[in-house]
């Protein structure tokens, strides 16, 4: 390549860069700017208001009548709950997805194709419809509820309209995003390495933790991002299965832009959500670098 090639390459990627900048960068900048302004009288934004961090302070503090700031944990709890929900969703998806992916890769070629098809079939129906389906499955007089109450020894079980319901819904919605990247990693996996591990005295658990899981790590990380990030921002599942009682950040943001008509506060919440996601991505990137970048 010639010395001018960096410039030429810039020229080639420029159109794409412009589009990304116009369609992602500019709206993000507008959102960040709006989060610093005051709400409009009825709807929208007071564009000529002086920018301040008031919307961000509102996340944790509340102004009392006499002007003193009081700690208001409501929004913090919602944020914390969102992160916790997304985290547990990811963990459950790993725990369920890894064995499924392992099992899939042990099938014959034809059976694998069928398995992949079965896993992608839920995407053929709308997310909303699927969440409503869970509403019916988990309803109070349903078979699942009866069964759960029969086997659970510690008093009555409420399956719907709580954090458990949201967790079930989220895991169900995002599990395929965990299974498929892990499975695609296993497809390239050299199973003779497993034989080598056994040969060197590793039992099944050791072979799993020392050889299979480390080699499946790229898939697990990719799957975790694909599950964690949309879970953190999801609102349909919480709205339907949480019954509006258990809010997540997505619901809160939707509320601000909808009923509350407080766009600047909604924008501030969105910025915080974005920051949380970036934090996770950067954390993962750092962790991977420390692993030597090889896996």
């Amino acid at each position, binding site marked *: 390549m010639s010395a001018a090639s960096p410039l030429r390459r810039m020229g080639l990627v420029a159109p794409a860069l412009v589009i990304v900048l116009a369609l992602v960068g500019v709206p993000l900048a507008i959102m960040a700017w709006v989060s610093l302004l005051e709400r409009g009288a009825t709807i929208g934004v007071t564009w000529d208001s002086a920018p301040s961090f008031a919307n961000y302070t509102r996340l944790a503090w509340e102004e009392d009548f006499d002007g003193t700031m009081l700690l208001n944990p409501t929004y913090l709890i919602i944020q914390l709950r969102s992160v916790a929900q997304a985290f547990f969703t990811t963990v459950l998806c790993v725990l369920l997805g890894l064995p499924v992916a392992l099992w899939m890769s042990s099938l014959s070629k034809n059976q694998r194709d069928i398995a992949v098809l079965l896993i992608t079939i839920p995407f053929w129906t709308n997310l909303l419809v699927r969440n409503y389906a869970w509403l019916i499955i988990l309803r109070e007089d349903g078979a699942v509820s009866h069964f759960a109450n029969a086997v659970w020894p510690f008093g009555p079980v409420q399956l719907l309209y709580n954090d458990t319901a949201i967790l079930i819904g989220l895991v169900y919605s995002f599990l395929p995003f965990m299974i498929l990247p892990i499975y695609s990693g296993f497809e390239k996996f050299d199973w003779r390495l497993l034989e*080598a591990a056994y*040969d060197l005295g590793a*039992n099944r658990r050791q072979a799993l933790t020392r050889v299979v899981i480390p080699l499946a790590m790229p898939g697990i990380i990719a799957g975790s991002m694909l599950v964690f990030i949309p879970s953190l921002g999801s609102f349909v599942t919480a709205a339907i299965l949480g019954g509006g009682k258990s809010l997540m950040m997505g619901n809160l943001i939707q509320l601000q832009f909808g009923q509350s008509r407080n766009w600047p506060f909604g924008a501030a919440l969105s910025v915080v959500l974005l920051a949380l996601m970036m934090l996770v991505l950067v954390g993962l990137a750092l962790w991977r670098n420390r692993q030597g970048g090889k896996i």
Partner: protein
Amino acid sequence: MTNPQSAISVQSVSKSFGRGDSAIKVLQDVAVEIGTREFFTLLGPSGCGKTTLLRLIAGFEELDSGSILIDGERVDHLPPFRRPVNTVFQNYALFPHLSVAQNVAFALEMQSLSRAEVIRRAGEALEMVRMAAFANRKPSELSGGQQQRVALARALAPRPKVLLLDEPLSALDLKLRKQMQIELKQLQAEAGITFVFVTHDQEEALTLSDRIAVMQGGRILQLDTPRAIYERPSHRFVADFIGDINLLEGKVDGGAIQLDCGASVAGNFGHAPGDRVTVAIRPERARLAKSGEGSFAAEVMHSAYLGTATLLQLRLADGREFLLRETRIGEGAAPPEKGSRVSVHLPDSALQVFAA
């Protein structure tokens, strides 16, 4: 019926892959007793079932029938990690996510030894294969021969009682290969490890082994010491597979064998009159005839001076080639020239006769 001396006892083992009509019989009724501390070699052409036999001993394949005992105990129902054997895999099978040192330490860590002990013994094993300088590299950053040496170190580090080696030196250059052969043999003798060694290289098999099993098509044709295999092959296939040999076809005629090239050999070697037979003789056991000896004529096609001997490539009356390795040319006499005619003598004691 179990031999108490045996480290490994393979008893009428059969194995096929696939089911029903499409099943391929890969091993048929194989029986071997391998002694403690023995250097035992499986030798045979590609696809004859060497790797399959090793995999059965290591526990990666299930037997169709028969049984396998290690140190007198049946192991054929045990998973690989419960069998006291380690394997050097034909394809190395190094862990790509671990460094060279971590690969070699793997088995030691499974034995829950102390950290210091793990490091010391992994270091020793790497030293032995001259890979200590590469301890921190990943397998993907090594050449094929280097990977092979790491695979060897990894299997040796836990000091197994039995080591299964599937062509462990095949990727090394000649010089390193010779060095590693010597070191393997020393190690095997000093550490008292039983080796089951697979190779394509018959010279390697002859120089290293206590005993050799020559396999063909899933069967063991001959199981004996290297000397016996070389000097008294039991089958025409074994004779042909190991070393250079001249195979002359002929027919038993009364008390002698009439060869197709016109010569005849006295004695019928236990074959009935009228039988087609093959007479085999090593190039170094045939010689140029002295006057008065039974002989036949041949034309010199090519003569190569080898230092310790002269290799003559001859053509017989029926057009076939005949190799003759003559050590006594040079004591005054000039080697026969190309195109000249010589007479060849086949000493009776050097002949092997197989049913054709």
